[in-house]
């Protein structure tokens, strides 16, 4: 099944405005015009997903430290959701903690990235995403 990469939505769960801006800027810089939806915390993210505001196919970029519903709690919820449990999720956080890394992978995330490691202006992660969704097969949601 081939998908037009332009149709892929990027759901950004990030409480930090500047980090969110950095992602947006990086996408702009790479001339990627995909649809970006941003939620400020896990709860808002879940609501958006469940209300159908996020069109499939989508990729979730998840921060761990967030108010109300943290990244790990969001993962817990979504993996129990019969519809959303197949979502592709990347974690992008400042936490180097082994516990966080392990807990996240146990919830079947597609990758764990440290904000400080994804290159100046988050360009590396955007490059990675661009490459990733060019070749990856998406689940039916």
């Amino acid at each position, binding site marked *: 099944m081939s998908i037009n990469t332009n149709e892929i939505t990027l759901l950004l769960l990030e409480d930090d405005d*500047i980090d969110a801006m950095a992602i947006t*800027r990086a996408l702009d810089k790479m001339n990627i015009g995909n649809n970006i939806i941003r939620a400020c915390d896990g709860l808002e993210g879940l609501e958006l997903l469940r209300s159908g505001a996020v069109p499939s196919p989508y990729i979730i970029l998840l921060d761990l430290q967030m108010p109300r519903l943290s990244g790990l709690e969001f993962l817990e919820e979504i993996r129990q959701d019969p519809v959303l449990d197949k979502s592709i999720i990347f974690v992008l956080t*400042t936490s180097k903690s082994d516990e966080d890394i392990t807990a996240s992978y146990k919830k079947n995330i597609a990758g764990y990235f440290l*904000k*400080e490691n994804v290159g*100046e202006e988050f360009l590396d992660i955007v490059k990675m995403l661009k490459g990733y969704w060019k070749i990856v097969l998406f689940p039916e949601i």
Partner: protein
Amino acid sequence: MEINDAQDARQKMLYSSHLRGFHWLILSLSVILTTAAWFVTTEQVHERAAERFERESLQVIELVKERMKLYEHALWGAVAFLDANKSELTDQQWKDYSNSLQIDRTYPGINGLGVILNITPEQRNSFIETQQATRPDFSIHPTHEESELWPITYIEPALSNEQAIGLDVAFEHNRYTGIKKARDSGLAQLTGPITLVQDAKQTPGFLFYAPFYKKGMAHDSVNARQSSIEGVAYAPFIMYKLISGTLAIDKRLVTLEINDNGQGLYNDLDSNETAEIDAKPLFTDKITVDFYGRKWQFVISSNLSFRKDSHSNQPYFILASGTTLTLLLLALFIVLSRASKQALTYADDITRELQINAQHLTKSNQDLEQFAYVASHDLKSPLNAIQKLVNWISEDCENILPDSSKEHLALLKNRTIRMNKLLDDLLDYARIGRHDFAPQELDLKATAHEVFSLLDHPKTFSLSVTEQLLLIPKTPLEIVLRNLISNAIKHHDKTSGHIEVLYKEEHGMHHICVKDDGPGIPQALFDKALEMFQTLKPRDKVEGSGMGLSLSKKTIEHYGGTLTIESDGVNGTSVIITWPMASKTTK
């Protein structure tokens, strides 16, 4: 292990702070030994006294026996004299005999020595007449119913025995029975207790008879003796006089009482010297001895002198010493246990204080680390945001901004990077205690080169490392090596340099030395170099958080090692770290 040792020591102290079974055992043994020693000594003392009493008793009886034997000899001497005398005995002859015998000196205790003749009632008058030829006062008295007469005919000394002259001893049962027994047996015999007529004090006494028979006649049977009896030699005795002399009270350690068939013959109680008599004698013995036809019962009791002589303080001394020793032991045990108890209480108090202090310290250390961790972590996010915003401004406004503002933005960027580094190091520092890394096999040379290659350094710097396989926690060693090598490069005063990592093993410790050929550190600044946030040069000249050395030091010390600086201040610096061998670090 240390905790166990301390617990053991505490248990021992707790154990010794109570009087235990073996303490009581020792005390009981002491009491038992004391009692036994006391008992044995008492028994010995008693036994010695008993032996002595027996000896004393026998001696008294022996002395009485000896006396009686002596008197018997006197009587048989008199009998021999009478037998040898061919003519009729006269008063004068008897007097002479007695005088030459010197009876009062030869036979102390004797009251006199006399002759009693046996006559028939028919011979009475002619007998009196014969006697009156020399002694006109002579008469036979008193009268009685018996068929024979036994008048005391001669007695010396006559003066003290005057009342006895002419006394017919057949008048009274004891005297008569005694004399008949002597006659029939042919042996010396005693009478039962009587009161002598010549004794003004009327005290008990007795007569001692030895029979003599008609000359030339056989007296080998009772009948023959009865028909041939002539008379008896006799001696009267007053008992207390017999006893006084060799048997005087003050010469004995025993009180004496002599009975004859239940009748009292002698009793010390009757004498004037009763001071020595013991109301409750230690020993009393009754011995019955056959004495010339009589049975004399000697009742012998120990007296006060005996009590005094046989008294021994030894048992009491032993008892007192033993008891004192036991009490001293008890006191010693109590003092020891109390000392242990006090020491224990003291130690417990100190331990409790220390524990509280340690808890406080651990808590505040944890708080501090937690704070450092949280602070540095939370500070990073806004800093990252600032960094990004600065970048965006520089990018977006590159054509608008004047050069000075661009320079300021560059400085701003530089400072945020420095602060980022500072926070990273602070995070590392706070994390040291949060995770214990297990020792693992690693190649020192490979590890050092890997660290070296990851460091941003000019190509003109080189590194040489001792080849060595180590069993050591990898991550902490990497942190230390990274900081030390990075310092060596960063603080080098020349554009090229050589860094050596040397290894040796000493006293069960790894010794790793990171040596450079840089400018060195003056000795006065060694301490400063190890302090947190201290840099020896302005940060604008040499980029640094000032935490490298202190971070390394804390890391090493966390694993039980040490870090020291060696430098002459001119020719390079050596940082020497020691690290315990893995076997010793396993907890």
